[in-house]
């Protein structure tokens, strides 16, 4: 039985098969509309997450399956003190596959250890969020036609952003990737990632200002710079505008650059950018449904 806990749980070849399946689902959704008839997905969300939960539920419904679950810890037995291990044992009797989100890091690993059904990590605290990474990768693969030979800029909070760390790890397995890390000093990419890139001899550079590097990028991955991450208000005010993508900055970028964002967006991408064809963050959400459909089929062995 397979689970998806970490984006690196799947080999490059397995990911390739998953993305090919997701692309086929995009083109021929009718072929998959009944694949999961009689199957149930349990969405066990110990903390609220509208987007991820609805994406999973939509994916299962698109496949003809049904959905059960809870959307916050207060409406589950966790509020009575039940452990994750016990909850998943019980859920295994009700459903065929489970997507779990939990505020504690490693909760999905515990679930997978005790589960009788495949477990998908739908986010475990600040640790991993593998289906977001798969979504990001499918978006790039579908719109660029490849997952190698490009320069990707990651902009904003690179220190605490789990989506950023997962994406770097996942892309570092492909050839010809160059990273540009665009962040204030306070939110630099962690050293262990820098060490990993150096060890694998993957080229990267770190810059402070988005304008300085946007012209070199094939992909720009935006994240939110949160006020509470800064030590003082002065630094925040001084730096925050560097990390807001507006039309003026986008005008410096290549015609075929893609702008991705894991969402929710607050103010780091100006609304005026939304109509630019390079802004693909809403398309990204649609790809998230396709990749979750492909993942459910793969883990249930229905391919």
């Amino acid at each position: 039985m397979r689970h998806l806990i970490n984006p690196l749980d799947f080999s490059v070849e397995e990911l390739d098969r998953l993305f090919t399946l997701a692309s086929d689902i995009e083109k021929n959704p009718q072929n998959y509309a009944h694949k999961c008839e009689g199957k149930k997905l349990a969405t066990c969300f110990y903390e609220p997450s509208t987007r991820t939960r609805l994406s999973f539920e939509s994916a299962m419904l698109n496949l003809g399956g049904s959905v059960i679950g809870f959307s916050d810890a207060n409406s589950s037995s966790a509020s009575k003190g039940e452990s994750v291990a016990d909850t998943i044992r019980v859920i295994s009797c009700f459903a065929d596959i489970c997507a779990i989100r939990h505020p504690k890091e490693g909760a999905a690993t515990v679930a997978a250890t005790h589960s009788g059904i495949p477990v998908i990590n739908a986010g475990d605290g600040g640790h991993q969020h593998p289906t977001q990474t798969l979504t990001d990768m499918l978006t790039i693969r579908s719109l660029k036609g490849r997952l190698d030979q490009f320069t990707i800029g990651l902009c904003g909070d690179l220190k605490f952003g789990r989506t950023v760390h997962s994406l770097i790890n996942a892309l570092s397995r492909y050839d010809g990737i160059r990273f540009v890390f665009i962040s204030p000093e306070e939110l630099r990419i962690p050293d262990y990632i820098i060490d990993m890139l150096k060890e694998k001899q993957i080229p990267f550079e770190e810059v402070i200002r988005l304008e300085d590097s946007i012209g070199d990028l094939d992909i720009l991955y935006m994240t939110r710079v949160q006020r509470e991450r800064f030590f003082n208000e002065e630094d925040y005010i001084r730096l925050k505008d560097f990390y807001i993508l507006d039309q003026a900055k986008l005008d410096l970028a290549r015609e075929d650059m893609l702008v991705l964002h894991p969402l929710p967006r607050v103010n780091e991408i100006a609304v005026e950018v939304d109509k630019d064809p390079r802004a693909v963050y809403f398309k990204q959400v649609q790809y998230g449904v396709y990749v979750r459909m492909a993942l459910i089929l793969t883990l249930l062995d229905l391919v």
Partner: protein
Amino acid sequence: MLNVGKIEEGYVLDHIKAGKSLTIYHLLELDKTDAQVAIIKNARSNKMGKKDILKVECPVGSINLDVLAFLDRKITVNVIEAGEIMHKEDLILPKEIKNVIKCKNPRCITSIEQGLPHIFVLSDEKKGIYRCKYCEGKYNEY
């Protein structure tokens, strides 16, 4: 110089960082065995200044010494048979350590989930880095 009677069969764990012998005594679960144990604290050492030594009289192979390599690779393990040092055992870092150290990450699931074993996995053999199996947090304290 302090003299402690020699042992016939067992282990002499030498070059233990001064003050750490009792920690090791408990981690090797020597408190749960009938083995005769001598704990020598703050012995003079040319190499280390001060060191601890543990002498354990027990059948060779009856103690799991894996955890020693994780704690301190500088510890020397002398294997004693028939009152003589037969050989010095090389310490190899265990691939996994269970219930020896605890994850200190307050965001880790181990901080709230009852009955969960604390498991650390060797992630970098060269640097001797262990990470929590659940949150992948690095363990860096002895």
